[in-house]
């Protein structure tokens, strides 16, 4: 049985349907990547899993439990944490407060503590007193990741964590991934950077227009197959 899975997941905003029957599954200790162009439904998928968008109960299962209809604050409590697209740090909180607030929903013991986050991203300790939003983009991303980790999640959802960052910064951030995996979190990364996704993921799902169009291990996927799945076969 998978740790986390979606089952024929449909979701949208009002009259606009963004997902049409998405099935993905995440096993314990696994890292999967969701790739696809803008508007493919990747962020909607993340928001549906995280409970920002509420669905029918059976559409999302976590540890065998139907959680599709639970609100975001309860999903965190179960052990699914999200690094939202655009980082979304709280402007009126300092760096340290931004990290601490991540522990609000779940006080369960685990590997991650404030100290361990500072060990992972030492720059944050230096800047812990300044407002989170005054940091550089890469440092803000570190805060957003730390904020999600501090709840000691079983599943970490990372939505577009490399978007808008310089390659060298992206490398630094992805360098933290092995330690996160080792600490016991299964990870879903949403990426537009296909190369990055292929490097870190055990399996890749490619999405287009609200559907998964291609799935497989990075080594099994040819460039052409990805290209077709990404832009449509006719392109």
């Amino acid at each position, binding site marked *: 049985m998978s740790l986390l899975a979606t089952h024929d997941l449909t979701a949208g905003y009002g009259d606009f349907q963004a997902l049409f029957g998405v099935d993905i599954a995440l096993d314990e200790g696994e890292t999967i990547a969701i790739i696809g162009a803008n508007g493919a439904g990747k962020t909607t998928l993340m928001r549906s899993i995280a409970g920002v968008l509420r669905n029918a109960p059976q559409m999302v299962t976590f540890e065998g439990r139907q959680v599709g209809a639970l609100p975001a604050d309860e999903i965190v409590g179960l052990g699914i944490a999200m690094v939202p697209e655009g980082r979304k740090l*709280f402007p009126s909180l300092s760096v340290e*407060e931004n990290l601490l*607030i991540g522990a*609000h*929903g779940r006080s369960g013991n685990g590997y991650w503590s404030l100290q361990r986050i500072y060990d992972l991203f030492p720059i944050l300790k230096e800047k812990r007193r300044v407002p989170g939003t005054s940091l550089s983009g890469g440092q803000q991303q570190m805060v957003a990741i730390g904020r999600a980790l501090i*709840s000691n999640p079983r599943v970490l959802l990372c939505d577009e964590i490399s978007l808008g960052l310089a390659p060298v910064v992206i490398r630094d951030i992805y360098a933290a991934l092995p330690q996160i995996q080792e600490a016991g979190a299964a990870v879903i990364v949403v990426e537009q950077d296909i190369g990055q996704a292929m490097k870190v993921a055990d399996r890749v799902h490619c999405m287009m227009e609200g559907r998964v169009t291609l799935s497989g291990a990075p080594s099994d996927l040819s460039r052409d197959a990805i290209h077709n799945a990404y832009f449509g076969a006719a392109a």
Partner: protein
Amino acid sequence: MIWIDTIAQGILLGGLYALFAAGLSLVFGIMRLVNLAHGDLIVLGAYLILLVVSILGINPFLAAAIAMPVMFGFGWVLQRLVLNRVLGEDILPPLLVTFGLSIVLQNALLEGFTADSQRVRAGPLETASVDLGAVTLGVMPMLTFASAIVVIVALNQIFYRTALGRAFRATSDDPVTASLMGIKPASVFAVATGIAMIVVTIAALYLGMRSNFDPTIGPARLIYAFEAVIIGGLGSLWGTLVGGIIIGVAQTVGAAINPEWQILAGHVAFLVVLLIKPRGLFPRAYD
């Protein structure tokens, strides 16, 4: 010398207005909700204290301590059952609902307590004063002012030093992302309104002990509170105290010139500040 006395009285009166305003400021800061029933809730608190005093025959300060949890509960339920349902982009529903609440509260109090003026008796404290040479200050006004400072310090401590305050600020910044942290905005708002009601009870205690009150005086208190908040700059509690002092001094100075000008002078001071500094004296950097 009369002017020093007038200004000193005005500053102390500002403490009362800051107490009226602190709850309003707290709720607005966290959920952008302007509660038009705020003044009537203060009056409700005064009647509750009066009721406890007359039933148990105890000191008004003790009575206020008993009223506080009741008012907290009332605020919590009000937020959960009514106000949470109307929060959102559109400002009209919360305004109209709290306006309706204001009318309901006023008339429920009229029905329950009649239109007669009431007062919470505080014994010798009412008339006690301290002679400081140049000015003679009443003990009650000084106590009011000190309470305002204690309330502001306490609220700032909660806001900036506790996990609850962190949740308040995070939810105020971005409720959706806050929910990703495991925060339930609906509960955070309910607790915030509950705390605002505790402040309202403290304001009600002094309102009731310092002067006569009846069910219809709430809206005027709301206006003073609102003026103090705007003058201070939204979201700054110390600014709210300064705003209260400006209104208080304007009123006592106006009254010293012509007793009929007291209230008018306060409003005019507000309009003048608004003209010069539209965002108040201590505006928040971002909003």
